[in-house]
């Protein structure tokens, strides 16, 4: 049976089952492994029940305060980045766009680095609540500026030419990277180290605070963008055609860019820059079952979560007991896949480039 013949609901169910399997595998895997029995007992304890059997305190602590938040963070960041990739690809009407290519991630990284280096002394007098919010806020502001700059600079007369967009993206990324580089140059050693880790991405700092913050922002945003899936579909026809179908394209673009930046910036502020997941997941889905944006958004959320968990497992075990930053894993696997996509695309659209 061909996978493309399956109904949307069947596919969602399939993805969800796969996600639960990968999540439980991810919780068990690591330098110290945890058994299913220990997981159940710890979970039951956390819910206030008094289960039979005993768990080592170390195992319970490892599960509740390290593995579980880490896996949950993987789920939401993978979902967020992939949904963001689907949104950007729909908005630019091009299947090779992802947040890393158009400034969103590098802008967020710069915003985060800024807080790392100058923020502590600057905002020290404010309360701790503001202290936890200031990092995502700064990441959001700069990633929004960078994304808008790329979009505005690469569009002329309502058309975004992809070659121009990628070149502008390279330039904006370079500016953001050089600013981040300057910050790490003037930074003291521990600050510089955290910037470096930031740019490679890692889930090792996952805790319940970051989990809560990212879920509170990402889940509503994903539900919100689902409302625009129809309009995004119409946008695939071109901006004027979407206008004839009654869609206010200018408003739509602004809303999508804001929501997308929100998702990416909050995610990036929690785990750093993780490339290529947002590019590849929507593309895989498009190969499975077409480009309906409703399917792409829901599917990306599920499959992105699966892939991020797998990548994180790899990053944990490949040089165990040490840990590889996950950005290295995703880029190392993702970049060749990206090249493969480009080559494949060339076959389909031999004549000229894309227009958006």
């Amino acid at each position, binding site marked *: 049976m061909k996978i493309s013949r399956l109904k949307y609901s069947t596919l969602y169910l399939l993805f969800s089952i796969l996600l639960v399997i990968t999540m439980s595998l991810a919780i068990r895997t690591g330098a110290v492994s945890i058994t299913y029995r220990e997981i159940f007992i710890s979970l039951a304890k956390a819910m206030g029940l008094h289960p039979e059997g005993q768990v080592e305190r170390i195992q319970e602590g490892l599960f509740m305060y390290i593995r579980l938040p880490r896996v949950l963070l993987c789920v939401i960041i993978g979902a967020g980045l992939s949904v963001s990739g689907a949104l950007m690809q729909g908005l630019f009407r091009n299947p090779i766009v992802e947040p890393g290519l158009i400034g969103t991630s590098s802008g967020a990284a710069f915003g985060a680095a800024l807080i790392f280096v100058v923020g502590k002394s600057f905002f020290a007098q404010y309360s701790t609540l503001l202290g936890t919010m200031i990092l995502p806020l700064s990441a959001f502001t700069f990633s929004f500026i960078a994304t808008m700059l790329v979009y505005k600079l690469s569009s002329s007369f309502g058309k975004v030419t992809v070659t121009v967009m990628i070149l502008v993206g390279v330039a904006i990324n370079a500016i953001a990277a050089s600013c981040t580089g300057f910050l790490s140059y003037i930074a003291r050693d521990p600050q510089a180290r955290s910037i470096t880790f930031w740019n490679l991405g890692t889930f090792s700092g996952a805790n319940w605070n970051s989990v809560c913050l990212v879920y509170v922002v990402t889940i509503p945003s994903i539900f919100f963008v689902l409302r625009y899936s129809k309009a995004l579909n119409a946008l695939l*026809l*071109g901006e004027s055609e979407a206008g004839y179908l009654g869609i206010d394209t200018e408003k739509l673009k602004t809303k999508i860019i804001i929501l997308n930046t929100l998702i990416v910036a909050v995610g990036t502020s929690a785990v750093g820059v993780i490339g290529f997941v947002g590019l590849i997941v929507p593309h895989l889905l498009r190969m499975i079952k*077409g480009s309906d944006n409703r399917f792409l958004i829901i599917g990306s959320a599920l499959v992105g979560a699966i892939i991020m968990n797998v990548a994180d497992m790899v990053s944990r075990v490949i040089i165990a007991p040490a840990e590889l930053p996950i950005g290295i894993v995703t880029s190392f696997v993702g970049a060749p896949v990206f090249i493969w996509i480009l080559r494949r695309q060339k076959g389909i659209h031999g004549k000229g480039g894309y227009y958006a």
Partner: protein
Amino acid sequence: MLEVKDISYSIGKQKILNNVSVSFEPGKLAMIIGPNGSGKSTLLKIISNEINKYYGSVRYDKILLTKKDKRTISKVRAVLSQESELSFPLSVEEVVMMGRYPHFDFKPAAKDMDICKQALKRMNMADFSERNYLTLSGGEKQRVHFARVMSQIWEQPKDKYRYFLLDEPIASLDLNYQHEFLRITKEIAKQNTVTVAVIHDINLALQYADSVLLINNGSVIANGPPSEVITADNLFKVYGLKCRVIKDPGSSFPHFVVE
């Protein structure tokens, strides 16, 4: 009723349209002809609200276009362009369903699906509904889009007219489908629809149009029944070509040949 009054439009110092006034009536197929760069496509873009910074006024049912809500007007007005830039894999069915987007919020109703089916059938594309749009030929793609815009204004609204605008819709089609498109367009026009098409082929205008608007350098040269507008004099004035009218006893309309 679609009324265009005193439209002037320029890009920089270049005047594209100069005081164009014309009205289009429901039930008739109106065609706009003129040389390249004469402003005919620009006029259509102003009528369809894609260009919205111009002097003058466009009124649908006596109401200013600028006062109309985009979504409301898209329920009764469809625009077919020369070519679409769709470059993502979507099924033919999904593309046609986009025509129904103004009519539902989240999920298409049974009625919407039925209309899409009928529109595809009308374009002889019923067997294509599951096909990937990207694998179609240029002509087949254009037929899919025709089905899409047809499904957009499939139903006759109460006490309102429908509007159907076409911008050089038949350039990528073979002879058979050029005529099929225009026959269907004329059918739609007859069902109380204000229909305006920009077209290049003068003989097709003579055969199908109920009225013809001839534009050159942004100004109206002539407007009226095809036999009065498309004359050897006018064509020489506009295209600089010497033409001759041929009356074939077998057909009810004249033909033009270039000498």
